[in-house]
């Protein structure tokens, strides 16, 4: 499964949104209505899934699904 599909799966699970809503352009906060707790949980889930560490200062810059996918690509 590619990174986008995996991020999509985790986002759907964590935020309880429809799969179709999780596009590359979707903003976690504005489009997917994530609150601050959701974001923390999402980042922790991504850290676990991809076995990476996302420091707080990096997490702040991850606003959209594509930000997350790009970030994970760079880290791997």
């Amino acid at each position, binding site marked *: 499964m590619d990174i986008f599909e995996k991020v999509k799966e985790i986002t759907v699970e964590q935020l309880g949104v429809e799969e179709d809503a999780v596009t590359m352009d979707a903003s976690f906060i504005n489009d997917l209505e994530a*609150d601050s*707790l959701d974001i923390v*949980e999402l980042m*922790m889930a991504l850290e676990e899934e991809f076995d990476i560490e996302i420091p707080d200062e990096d997490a702040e810059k991850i606003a959209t699904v594509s930000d997350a996918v790009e970030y994970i690509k760079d880290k791997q």
Partner: protein
Amino acid sequence: MEFQNKTVIVTGSTQGIGREIALKFGAEGANVVVNGIDIPLQKELAESACAEIRENGGKAEYMLCDVSKPEETDALIKFALEKFEKIDVIVNNAGITRDNLIMRMSESDWDSVLAVNLKGAFNVIKSAARTLTKQRSGVIINMASVSGVMGNAGQANYSASKAGLIGLTKSVAKELAARNIRCNAVAPGFIQTAMTDKLKEDIKETYLASIPLKRFGQVEDIANLVLFLAGDKAKYITGQVINVDGGLVM
């Protein structure tokens, strides 16, 4: 049996108020994780608490660990999940005293009381937070003290730790409310336990004179409130500090 199949962790439950809380949850059918620190006699006390819970129809397992150490609270939460699969109620009850007037209070007396009473609760909550937020349910109850509400000469460290627990309680209540997790504090007044038995007679007399109900509390007075707060009857109560003190603070 209100707490049938509910997992309840009670820190510092080998004796005193914590033990009574653990036993009462056990009697309501809960799966109880008993905890004490790993020093002589605690194992025997933990085993006897577990035995009593099982006799009364609950399930019980114990783990000795030091709540002031995050790696040990991580292990405690893992242990609870391995034994009972989920976590429904956490009672942060572990606490110590090192009383002295501030001019004679050593740095280590200050540090050790803050480490167990305040940081210990933080550690347990942090270790469990991910599990609770995923579950979308959970109840946290922190054992504060009237000493943390009104201050107490000779207890600068203890009252600071308990006042700190009240702030922790309110912040956690606000942070985790969106995940259906409630957090409250119970502030016991003068309760008859080994902790208060070691106070001098004249100090006890002074306290008694200021308690409107003119008697000291019993451990069950505290346990009764803890069970109420943990249950569905308290489902709309969060971020509160409730005194159980015979009217000492009002």
